[in-house]
């Protein structure tokens, strides 16, 4: 099965959604930073897969 660009986009959006749930859920400040890091990493995968 070929891994196309769409696979990477779906993965990136799933990770972005997980990060978003984390940002909305966490009341602790440090845990909020963790969820923000997840968001950043999801967009990094997206940027690299398009090239």
């Amino acid at each position, binding site marked *: 099965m070929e891994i196309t660009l769409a696979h990477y986009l779906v993965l990136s959006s799933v*990770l972005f959604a*997980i990060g978003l749930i984390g940002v909305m859920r966490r009341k602790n400040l440090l845990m909020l930073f*963790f*969820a923000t890091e*997840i968001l950043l990493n999801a967009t990094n995968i997206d940027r*690299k*897969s398009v090239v």
Partner: protein
Amino acid sequence: MFEAIAFYLFAALTIGMFTITVMTSQALYALTAMAAGMIFISAFFFILGADFLGVIQIIVYTGAVMALYAFGMMFFDTTRTLVEKRENPRTIFLLGVIAATLVVFIVISPIISTHLEARYPIEAALGNSQAIGLILFTKFLVPFEVAAVMLLVAMIAGIVLAGKKMDKSLTLMAEEEIALMSAAQTKPESQEGAH
């Protein structure tokens, strides 16, 4: 075929690790799962052929950023909620709106103009590190130097903020002096708390 196996395996692992990070109630489990997730994300960079970026992801994200979070969790009490003091909320709101519109315009400007030309095309003979080095030291030299200066400023600011008690060195003092110093510090605090 191997690429598909690797992709699905690392995708499942990454999603599992990040779900643990956002769902668990213990901070140490979240930290460990986060570090594992960062390493699994670097696998995607290696699958896509960006080996330099994958190694940078492991070194910077897992090695530096997660270690920084671990130290932050060790030394700071994050269970108390922060109370921010805002003196002028309307100015802050206006500045935020201006900054947001600026960022949106900067990001969508390639759509508006079609005058885009590739000045540094990718050559097949160069490897990943050589290509990044070529761009970094010719086209992006000034941002590179500015980022270095910014890191220096941040380091100096960190040392100044942390060195408020640096005139006394705990390793050179005797045990009795340390006990005297800590007793002298806690006595005024307990008197203040009683009143």
